[in-house]
Structure formats: C-alpha cells, structure tokens
C-alpha cells in the first residue's frame, strides 16, 4: 500500500501543454477517481503516474519517494487497461503470472499467488484458457487478476469498464469496489462516467482542460460544486442552470420570477447563474409557470421536462405523474437547495450544503 503525491505536474506535447500544474494528494488505501470529459488530461495524468508518459515538470511521489525518473517496472504499480491488454498467446494463468515470472520468482510461488488471485476473482476454472476464449467480463477480471498478483503499492485503472455492456458494467463496478474494500490497495481510477466516479470513489478529482476543477468526496461534489462545470458534470440528469440576479435576499430569473432565497449574500442586481438539481424541484400551486414538454417515466422515478418562457428545466420526481404533455404547471425550488455561480467566472458564490 502506498500514498501518492503529485506536485505541480506539467506535461507538454511539443508546444502544447496538456497538464497545467496538477497537485493531488492520495492517502494510503484511498480509492481516487479521476473524472472529466475526453481530452481533459485524466488519462495522460494516469499514464504519467504509471511511467508510460514522461512529465515535463513537477514531481510524482509514491510513499514520499520521488519516482519521476523511474521506468514503469520500478514504480511498484499495476495497471488495468481499457482494452485489457491481455497477452493473447498466454493462458489466463500465464497472463496473471507474467510479472512474477519476469521478477524470477520460483514457479511454485507463482502458482500459489496466481491461484490465490484466481480464487478471489472467481477465475480458477478459467486458468488454462486463452484470452480469446473468454467473455468481456472474464477478460476484465483477468486483467484485474494480473494486477492483484503483483501486490503493488498502487493500482491504476484506465477506463476499465468502457468496453463492457451496460449491465456488465454495473456488475463489474461493484466487483471492483468490493475488491478494493477487501485489498485496501491505493487505487487511482480514470473514467469519463460520473456515475462510476460517484459510486466507487472515496475521493473524486474532476478535471477539465488539463486543470483540476475540484477535489472532494462524491457527496461534497454533489452538494457543493465549486463551479458550473462540476455542478453540470456530476449528477444525472444534470443540474438546471438559469441566468438570474439578486433582488434583496431573493434570487430572481431575468423575467423577475422568484427562485428562492439567495444562498449567499449577494450585491443588489448582481448577475449570477442559478443552479438547482432536478430532484430539488416541487410542483406547486404557486411558483414559476411552465409547460410540461416531455414526460419520461423510468419506473422508480419520472423525469419531466418543463419549459418556461426563459429556459428548459428538468425535474425528477418519485411520485406518480398525473400531468399530461402540454399541460400547464407551476414549480418551485426546494428551499435551501439553490446554488449561485458567478456569471463571469462560473465559480460558486456558495450554495446548497446538505
């Protein structure tokens, strides 16, 4: 097990800088998820930690030992790739034991460790198979097995579930989390899927354009997003955003519809972006008038698209919906659930906490 510290990590490809000084501390045993849209630099950061990319500046340390100049094999890490990267000409057992073989461990020891890992991952029956004879989920497990066998200080996962179908993805998600709870190995996991990030992480690092946008626990990010970007990225369906301004202690839309109490002291007429989550909307007799544009039941909850004069607003409700498309409704935001972001910087001015 190991702690990981990143200090001002920079990475350039020629004149183009893709990581602009990343700082990050990962505690021993922590499950950290790097999440962000494609091109945000999360994979590059992970590959830099693995030693597959050389960084242009900064320091990477594992257990306080700076490893910038070390080749991957000297970093004591294991990595699971998006496409699994299993060696096609080796059996499952050989795949899993490959690193031990390279480390010249005795064959008996290799067998023992491979068996133990296979036991954990339910791969025992498949040890003599070749990768081409396995299903996607099984290949995924072999890739994890290969990482486990090493007993490294840090596990690195690079979008390991994105090649699986939806159902399997959910299942493997739980398996990886369970595995982490069992082994307690420090894990850095890259994904573009915010649900994976939310469900698995102890700590989420939201990245955008080579910067860290916000670091926090899943619920911290959900309840107190630091920017419009994080607020919109975390949570599904996304947070609703409406341009607004402060009138006294009330936040009003452009047309003067009251949204609720300002979440923080704001200057009079200060322009902000108001944000509220779909589940924080109530239909009520008074409030902002809107037309029901779309009703999408998912079973447990129903998603409604409401159209006001100014914007489209998504709401979700666990109640059965009696409205019909085209019908007129009024809605209001649950008190205390309003966020406000600066209209210029898009950074939070404060907002809902709980």
């Amino acid at each position, binding site marked *: 097990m190991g702690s990981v510290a990143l200090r001002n990590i920079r990475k350039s490809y020629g004149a183009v800088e893709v990581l602009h000084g990343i700082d990050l501390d990962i505690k021993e045993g922590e499950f950290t998820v790097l999440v962000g849209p494609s091109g945000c630099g999360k994979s590059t950061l992970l590959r830099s930690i*693995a*030693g*597959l990319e050389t960084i242009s500046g900064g320091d990477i340390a594992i257990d306080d030992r700076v490893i910038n100049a070390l*080749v*991957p*094999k000297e970093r004591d*890490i*294991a*990595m699971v*790739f*998006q*496409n*699994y*990267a*299993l*060696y*096609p*000409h080796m059996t499952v057992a050989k795949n899993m034991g*490959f*690193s031990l073989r*390279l*480390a010249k461990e005795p064959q008996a020891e290799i067998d023992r460790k491979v068996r133990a890992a296979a036991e954990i991952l339910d791969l025992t029956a498949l040890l003599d198979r*070749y*990768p*081409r*004879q*396995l299903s*996607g989920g099984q*290949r995924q497990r072999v890739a994890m097995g*290969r990482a486990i066998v*090493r007993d490294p200080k840090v596990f690195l996962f690079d979008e390991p579930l994105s*090649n699986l179908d939806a159902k399997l993805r959910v299942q493997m998600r739980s398996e990886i989390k369970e595995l982490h709870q069992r082994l307690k190995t420090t894990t850095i996991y890259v994904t573009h899927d915010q649900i994976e990030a939310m469900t698995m992480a102890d700590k989420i690092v939201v990245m955008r354009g080579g910067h860290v946008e916000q670091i926090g626990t899943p619920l911290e990010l959900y309840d107190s997003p630091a920017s419009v970007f994080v607020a919109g990225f975390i949570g599904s369906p996304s947070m609703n955003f409406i341009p607004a301004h402060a009138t006294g202690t009330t936040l009003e839309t452009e047309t003067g519809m009251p949204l609720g109490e300002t979440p923080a002291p704001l200057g009079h007429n200060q322009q902000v972006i108001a944000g509220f989550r779909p589940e924080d909307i109530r239909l009520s007799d008074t409030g902002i008038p809107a037309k029901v544009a779309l009703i999408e039941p998912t079973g447990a909850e129903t998603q409604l698209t409401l159209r006001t004069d100014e914007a489209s607003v998504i709401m979700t409700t666990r109640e059965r919906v009696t409205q019909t498309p085209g019908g007129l409704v009024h809605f209001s935001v649950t008190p205390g659930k309003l966020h406000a972001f600066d209209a210029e910087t898009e950074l939070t001015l404060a907002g809902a906490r709980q």
Partner: protein
Amino acid sequence: MNEQPRTLYWVFLGFVGLVISLYVLFPVFWLFLASFKTQAELAQLPISFWPESPTLDAYKALFSPTHQKGQLLDWPQLIGNSFFIAISSTVIVLVFGTLAGYAFARLNFPGRDLILGGLLISRMFQGAALLLPTYRLMSMIGLQDSLIGLVLLYSAFGLPFATWIIASSLREIPKELEESAMIDGASRLQSMVMVVLPLATPALITASMWHFVGAWSEFAFASILLESNDNKTVTIGLASFVELFTLEFQYVGAAATIVALPIMLVFFFGQRYFTRGLLAGAVKG
C-alpha cells in the same frame, strides 16, 4: 431465394480455378513424371504419360559421385551451397528485418515514414539493371565467386521488403500490450521478445518464407557471380543441363523435383501460419 445462382457461381469459379491449375501445374507434373522414366522411354513415340517401369535411376545418378554424364557438377554440393545461402540470408534478413521493423513500428524518429516508403521504392528496380554494377562492386571488394558474398547480396535485396512486412504487422499489435508488459516488469527487449514477437509469428514466417524461396531459386546474380564449380547453386545446376549436347530429360526432371522440394515443404508447413488469427482476444472484441 437466389441460392441457385450462387451455387452456379461457385461451381463456375471452381471450374475456372481448376483449368488454371491444370494449365500451370501440368508441365510441372510432366517433368516430375519424366524423372521416373528411362532415356529410352522419353525418346520413344508415341509419348507415354505414366512411366512404364518407374525407376529411380535418375535420382541415383545425380547423387552418385562416380556419375559422369558429361556434367561436372556435384549435386550434393550444389544443394548444400543453396541451403547455406538461402538459410544464412534468411536468418540475417529475419534478425535485422525484425529489429528494423520494430523500430519503424514503435519508435519515433525524423523521416521515419519517408524511409519506410523508400524501402518499397527499392523494390521497384529491376534486378537485371543491377547485374553489372553489382558484379563490378562485388569484384572490387573481392566477394565475387564467394558464397558469403551471395549471402550478403541476397540479404541486402531481401531486407527492405522483410522490414516492410514486419513493420506493418507490428503496427497492428496494440501498443497497450507492450505497455502492460513494461508495467509487469519487462524491459523493452523483453517485451519485444516475450510479447510482441510471438504475436508477429505469422509475419515473421511469411517474411522468412518469402525470402527463403527467393534466395533458393535466384539464378541471375548467382550465375554471374559464382564461377568455380564448388560454389555453384542448384539453379545453376539446373541450367547446366541445357548446355549439354544431349538433353537427358530424366535428369532435368529429377533435379527439378529435388530443387522444388524445399519450396513445397516450406509452403506446406508455413501455410497454416498465414491464416492463424493470433491476435484474437488480445483486446476487446
């Protein structure tokens, strides 16, 4: 619905294939049969298709040291020379083609794609245009009439194409496999030998077969460069029959069969590697 037209189509294709095969293979087969006939039988009219009394005399004669049929060439020696040249240059081409191919496929260096394209251009020169300059060059450096000289020459001719085949196939191998190997603790050389090359086996075998067959059957350069009888190759030996006053076809047949044998064996054993989808299961899919 259109089952029948499809079937007809395949029957037609099969028929065309059969005709072409017969057209191409009949002379070969004829020569093969001739090698089991006697001189008298070959001379008689009407010509018999199957040997009347099959005999291995022609083969025995080729391999008997006391055999004097007006020809001075020692066939076991020729075969040995040809094997030496073909195998040595194949090994050289394979080793250097693999190293170069790996560099082209995996390393970034200025002018990489230009050079790789240039390798193909070198294939566009007609060998015949190079005969004289090559002869001059080899005499100047004292490598004419030398098996080593021919090995080096064939290696130089074969290397560009082999490199190209190997580089193209290495490019198909996902980079992650090597990255994974390096994280597992392999050096670049180890990841190449233990992960990449086993997966490139079909390409390596294809390149080797291609080169071996070419080197084994090369005639033009061998005939101008090799002078002493001790150094000659099987292709020169075959040609020498024609220079004799009496053309004894059973010997030509026997010799041609022997010369063709290694090539047939190479294809027989190499063929299955062409189609083997070794990469299946490496990545998703």
